[in-house]
């Protein structure tokens, strides 16, 4: 009997001892010092500046991918990595599906999607933060105008690369909730509306933003200042004009051409430009050495970026027999010859000895949009509204001053097609490697006029029309079907 009680007491003591070991729950309440906790950040007074800079970092993060994706398909450049043939084959060959050649949704050529949506998510969060903050009305208005302009720009980039596939325009608060596709037409209308809404907000935004903009908006880099609401508005109008011109050739028609002309007149377009500096006025993405981001295209460090040989053969000559000034300024020759991987039916004719001299160092800025582009957009818009003489005049401003070429032989009697050819030549050399060539040729249904590198075999003369919806996006949406896999009954996710 005694022993039993003794045993029970011992046991109770044991159980209590076991409980005592590691009893305090607070012992396991450790912190996570590796990341900023969202709750803590929102109350920090510098948060608004950091979030605004975040939007510009996001936008900058999409720029180089857009340039290289459209550059390879638009036959401006190659990425010849000696140990990775897929940097060439995934863009120029793709895969064959039901007899139709297209880009592989699981391959390398699926970019310009996640980056843009990452920016859109941050813009969504930023707008909510502004709405909930205790700033003054003009400050809120200016901040929202800034955010909506970037929103329009990101959605426009998605439309540029996905075109007829349509895009998703909405960001949902719940990350698991999917938003449906909208058609290209609806997408463009949404972009133009939001840029106009942003313009209205900027006009009511007072004389300064409640945060500082990146150096690419400042006069030192941009040529003129874009970092106050009234001056940022000019940047907004420039983006609107470009989107309207693109929309006009994709179903927007006369109304879009007119909207483009109206927007251009409120932008920073300067048709008295004659010098390189004047043509280069515009908003830029700036880069720098660590901890900043480097310009990955610079010839100082990028030994795999090659220019397409056709840029040399197609350059028109000046009066003195030298090639186009823009060719001379942007292209360097004599690089060690490189080519695509050796395959039975691969792009074995894809090879080059040309490189670019556009970005001499890793801190060379890359333009988002420049005066030279605005003048050429106006040429397109004038042609679109029937003003052929005006279009040719604008074309010649760029052709003679920037290219050093003799004035064009086109006249008001020339056909629309011939004038388009003239404008596209100027755009090709003026906006080389600025992410426009592929989209411009597609808009005018001239993809088959691009210089093609695959002369034979199943993949002969393949030029991708759109970048595909990435497979990971489609795997998320397949089960829902309907508008979630494409606009208006279209199936963007079919194999």
């Amino acid at each position, binding site marked *: 009997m005694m022993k039993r009680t003794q045993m029970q007491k011992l*046991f109770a003591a044991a159980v209590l001892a076991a409980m005592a070991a590691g009893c305090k729950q607070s012992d396991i309440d450790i912190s996570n010092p590796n990341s900023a*906790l969202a709750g803590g950040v929102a109350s920090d007074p510098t948060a608004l500046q*950091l979030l605004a800079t975040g939007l510009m970092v996001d936008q900058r993060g999409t720029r180089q991918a857009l340039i290289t994706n459209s550059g390879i398909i638009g036959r401006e450049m190659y990425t010849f990595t000696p140990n990775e043939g897929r940097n060439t084959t995934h863009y120029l060959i793709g895969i064959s599906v039901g007899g139709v050649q297209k880009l592989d949704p699981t391959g390398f050529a699926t970019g310009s999607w996640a980056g843009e949506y990452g920016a859109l998510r941050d813009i969504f969060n930023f707008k909510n933060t502004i709405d909930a903050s205790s700033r003054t009305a003009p400050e809120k208005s200016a901040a929202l105008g800034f955010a909506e302009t970037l929103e329009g720009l990101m959605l426009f980039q998605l439309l540029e690369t996905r075109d007829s596939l349509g895009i998703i325009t909405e960001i949902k608060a719940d990350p698991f909730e999917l938003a449906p596709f909208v058609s290209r037409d609806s997408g463009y209308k949404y972009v133009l509306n939001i840029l106009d809404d942003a313009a209205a907000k900027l006009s009511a935004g007072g004389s300064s933003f409640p945060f500082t903009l990146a150096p*690419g908006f400042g006069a030192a880099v941009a040529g003129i200042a874009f970092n106050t609401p009234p001056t940022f508005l000019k940047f907004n109008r420039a983006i609107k004009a470009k989107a309207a011109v693109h929309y006009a050739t994709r179903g927007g028609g006369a109304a879009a051409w007119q909207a483009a002309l109206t927007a251009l007149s409120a932008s920073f377009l300067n048709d008295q430009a004659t010098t390189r500096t004047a043509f280069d006025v515009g908003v830029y993405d700036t880069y720098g050495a660590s901890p900043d981001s480097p310009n990955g295209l610079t010839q100082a460090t990028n030994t795999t970026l090659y220019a397409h040989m056709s840029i040399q053969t197609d350059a028109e000559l000046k009066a003195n027999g030298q090639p186009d000034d823009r060719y001379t300024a942007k292209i360097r020759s004599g690089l060690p010859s490189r080519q695509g991987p050796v395959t039975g039916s691969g792009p074995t004719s894809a090879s080059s000895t040309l490189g670019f001299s556009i970005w001499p160092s890793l801190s060379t800025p890359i333009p988002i949009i420049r005066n030279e582009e605005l003048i050429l957009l106006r040429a397109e818009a004038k042609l679109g509204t029937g003003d052929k003489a005006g279009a040719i005049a604008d074309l010649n401003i760029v052709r003679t001053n920037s290219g050093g070429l003799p004035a064009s032989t086109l006249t008001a009697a020339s056909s629309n097609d011939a004038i388009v050819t003239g404008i596209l030549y100027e755009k090709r050399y003026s906006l080389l490697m600025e992410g426009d060539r592929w989209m411009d040729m597609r808009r005018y249904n001239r993809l088959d006029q691009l210089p093609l590198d695959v002369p034979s075999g199943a993949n002969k003369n393949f030029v991708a029309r759109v970048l595909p919806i990435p497979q990971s996006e489609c795997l998320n949406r397949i089960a829902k079907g309907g508008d979630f896999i494409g606009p208006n009954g279209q199936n963007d996710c079919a194999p």
Partner: protein
Amino acid sequence: MITTKRGKAGTTRYNATQRIGTQQATRLLGSRHFTSYDEVKPYLGSSAHADSIAKANCTPQCQWYDWQGQLYNNTSPSFETLLSASGGVNNTKYFASLNDRQAKGIQQNTGARLTSGRLNLDQTIGDKITISGGVDVSHNKTQDGIGNNDNAGISPTYSFGYSPAIYDLRRIDPVTGRLVYMWMNGGGAGTVNPFDLVHSITNLEDTWRQIANVRFGYAALSTVHNTVQFTYIGGVDRFQFEGTQYSPNYMQYEAADGFLGTSQINNSDSRNINQSVNAVWTYSPGFRFLNSAQTSVGGTYETQYQHTYLIRQRGLTPTRQVATGGTDIATNDFLNEFRDQSRYVNEQIIAFDEKLAVSAGIRADRGSANGDRSKFYGFPKYSASYRFTEPFSRFTSKIDEIKLRASYGQSGNRPNYGVRDITIAGGGTIGGAGSLVAAGTVGNPKIKPEVMNETEIGLDAAFLRGRVSLEASHYERVIKDLLVNYPLAASSGLGTQQINGGQMSTRGIEAGLSVVPISTRNTEWTIRTTFQHNVQYVDKLAVPAFPVLGSFGASYGRNRIAAGTRPTYIWGNQRYSCINTTDANGKLVVGTGADGKACHRLNPGETVASAITRDSIVADANPIGQTSFLNTLRYRAFTLTALVDWRIAGYTADMTKNLWDEGGNSRDYDSKSPDPSQPLGEFRYGSFAGGNISPYIDLGTFVKLREVNVTYQAPARWARLARANDLRISLQGRNLAMKTNYWSFDPEFNNFGNSNFNRFIDLAPYPSNRQFFLSIDLGY
């Protein structure tokens, strides 16, 4: 808790072992023997120097140099010395040992040295208290080579794969005074001479590790029928790791990133502490129907801490090796912590003449990684077994014993550190200004452990007075609340979230058979064979199917987590003549292709109009089964053991072969292919570029002779020559031979190391090696 050898009471015994060994590469890839200048020209790149080398060395037939054999030829001897002493006096027992091992790797200029010392003490105080403790200190220094995946053309398997082996890389260039450049494949900054690489770079890892443990035992009660024991165990495992890498300014590839010279230092400090207390009450009433009942109750507290930081600098002052003063700086600092508290109670009953054993218990944990840190998650377990001794003894005396057993248990697997926190990320700087962006990984404050439910039934049997024994088990593991690292749709603007979102199960069998065919005074031969087979399924998934993150994309093959399929399937691009569809009711509708046949998969080289490329299941990376044979033969003083492993099936993505085909250098490039107009290498690569990766998904069946060991127990008089009691000489070989049709080095490689998925990707690994040892063991 790590515990090791303990001392035994009695006079001190000493033991000394000296081992000497060597190593060599098991298998190398070979390379193409080019027959003419025209054949080698596409792979030279465009430099005039490469062209002149090719012209000089390819008249008429190209010379061939065994670059791999020359690089992986380090057979320098390895040494190991082991000294130990164990003994006991009165109430103290001790064990001490010292170990020093140094070995070279097969790649030139690589090697490792491990020095460690250990001391274990056991002390009995009075008749109730026992204390034991141990300390183990080790220093491991490795000089690593370079291998595996890279995109800069530095890894030797890459440089060799893309460069025709037509000139001697070990010569000194008279102009530079250093080893010749790699001129092939374009030369320049995109490649390197691997011989120069391994002798010029530094890649060192240095680890100091200290492990200590202490155990207090108190026998509170010790009577005929009852014993009560209290125990406290504490253990510490610490290490300090320092890794240094340095690549000098003059290396051929350094110009590629615009910064000459790269230096990196990586430091990691880790400290794991584990403590537990428990009480065990054993009640042994001595009844026939109840032999003993043991109750244990206890708790543990575990902490893990690891702090890692690194500095990398590029653009260095020539010959300055430390990571400072460079023009490009990158740093990283990361802290990883985990704490866990648990309590458990367990009851085990042995009854009926020790024939029946039944146990039940439950463990409850709360940890810092769970979303709810205050909640205890409980994991019960139950088991039972029954032994039939001399069953059917009326009919046969051959069966000694059959034991049937069954068990069920739950265990938890915790989420990763940081998953429960909603964070916001630093977005990078612009013009010197920092930024904040949405975190790519969305935090999940509701995350909780995934729970594995394991059910096992098994049979153990012994026959013929122990000459034959058999164990067989069937197990089923079902993981519920599966922790899934799920990629959100990119259109949400976010990256991944870890959720408890599914159920995965594994079913398998394990069996082992031991037979002693010969057992006499002088000879004994034992064969032991084991077999295992398992299949995994994803039963349920709360989110849409997704490819496992961390792979090289669909063109190299990867696993996909999809409900109703095996997560071990390799998914990749393949060609189909057409695709079947499903009708409105979900029924499969078989289509017809342009060849008039039902939709089917196309083999490489087969063409059908309007064929479709699609990411689909290619093969299963999981083997059908694995079996091993261990033979031990003892004849008088000699003992011979041999271990053979046989893996049946299990496919691998042989991307090393893809690399070498792309570089035009695979050893079988010129062999015949199904297409008479293309050699084999071009055929395989063309199929891959055309959307069919199956030429690179290789069957990984192998038979490996893992180990052979011959030991001789020397006669006493030999031992006495060395003043020892005991002398043993053994000769051992490891990884001796492999029989397989696999193209690359070894079907058991995994590019991503110890990962749960995507374990089948072979991309430019380091060759495996075979080792030989001669050891002399002296006992005093």
